[in-house]
């Protein structure tokens, strides 16, 4: 089966060296659907993004370090350029995740895009009011991802380096967090 199904430990996910290349956009994708995770991951990879995929809002918060006592801080050294989240998820919704991210000091500036299969205007309005960058209707198109990437590239002033060798873009799929968080990253307290 595909590499996406292998669970990785939290320590590896937080290894700073894994976020090597400064010129690749790092996208955190959140979706409870197996099919959609596979699909969005591929869309992002062909768009030359580094991808981390998680299957719930709770796991997204854990990944960002927003799940612990000081919920407003987060992993200061974690570089995430874009968060794409499904709206309808069991437990915490994408909307609730959006709010938590916007409340955090480390990640409130990170653009959050909501994805939904339902074109419900009040829902869209609510998300945009809460600070969502964009609202995409599923199934997401490659052109949507490219458009997002292009606008972000301008903002971040990153440059693409084309290497002659094919660079393997790593995907980190964080499914299980059974060991306590051993963060190798600094956490600064306000």
């Amino acid at each position: 089966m595909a590499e996406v199904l292998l669970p990785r430990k939290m320590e590896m996910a937080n290894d700073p060296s894994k976020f090597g290349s400064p010129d690749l956009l790092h996208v955190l994708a959140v979706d409870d659907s197996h099919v959609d995770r596979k699909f969005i991951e591929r869309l992002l990879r062909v768009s030359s993004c580094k991808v981390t995929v998680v299957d719930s809002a709770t796991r997204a918060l854990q990944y960002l370090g927003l799940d612990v006592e000081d919920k407003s801080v987060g992993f200061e050294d974690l570089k995430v350029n874009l968060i794409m989240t499904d709206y309808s998820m069991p437990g915490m919704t994408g909307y609730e995740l959006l709010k938590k991210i916007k409340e955090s000091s480390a990640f409130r500036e990170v653009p959050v895009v909501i994805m939904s299969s339902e074109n419900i205007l009040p829902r869209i309005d609510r998300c945009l009011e809460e600070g969502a960058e964009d609202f995409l209707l599923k199934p997401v198109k490659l052109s949507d991802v490219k458009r997002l990437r292009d606008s972000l590239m301008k903002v971040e002033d990153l440059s693409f380096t084309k290497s002659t060798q094919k660079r393997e873009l790593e995907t980190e799929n964080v499914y299980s967090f059974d060991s306590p968080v051993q963060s190798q990253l600094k956490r600064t307290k306000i």
Partner: protein
Amino acid sequence: MDLVQMQKSLQDYTKSLFLEGILDSQFLQLQQLQDESNPDFVSQVVTLFFQDSDRILNDLSLSLGQQVVDFKKVDPHVHQLKGSSSSIGAQRVKNACVVFRNFCEQQNVEACHRCLQQVKQEYYLVRNRLETLFKLEQQIVASGGMIPAVELGF
């Protein structure tokens, strides 16, 4: 059958799935995302869809089979199935799910039972057709051939 004939068969077969509305353009999107570095992408996604769908259809049968149907349980399942079928381009399954959800909203148990049968029918159909499609592709690859590129103009 020689290679060229097999490739033609595959193209004709694929076209028929679109013409019959069993698949829609989203399936083309999936095919366009497949390349030499990810040669099995489509079959991987579709396999996930099959696994998810089997589970959901089973859960739906159980939920609808209860004495008192809890539509709060039924609807999310249908929503999930609608989402994943939409993501792979299984148009008729998706459309059947839309109808199903409407009846869930109305809490019409009888109609929901009929909808479940309809969804199952469409699912088994697309599953059968896609499995045939993948077999045709495997035969071509096994004979040393390439899968013909996706034709958008039909």
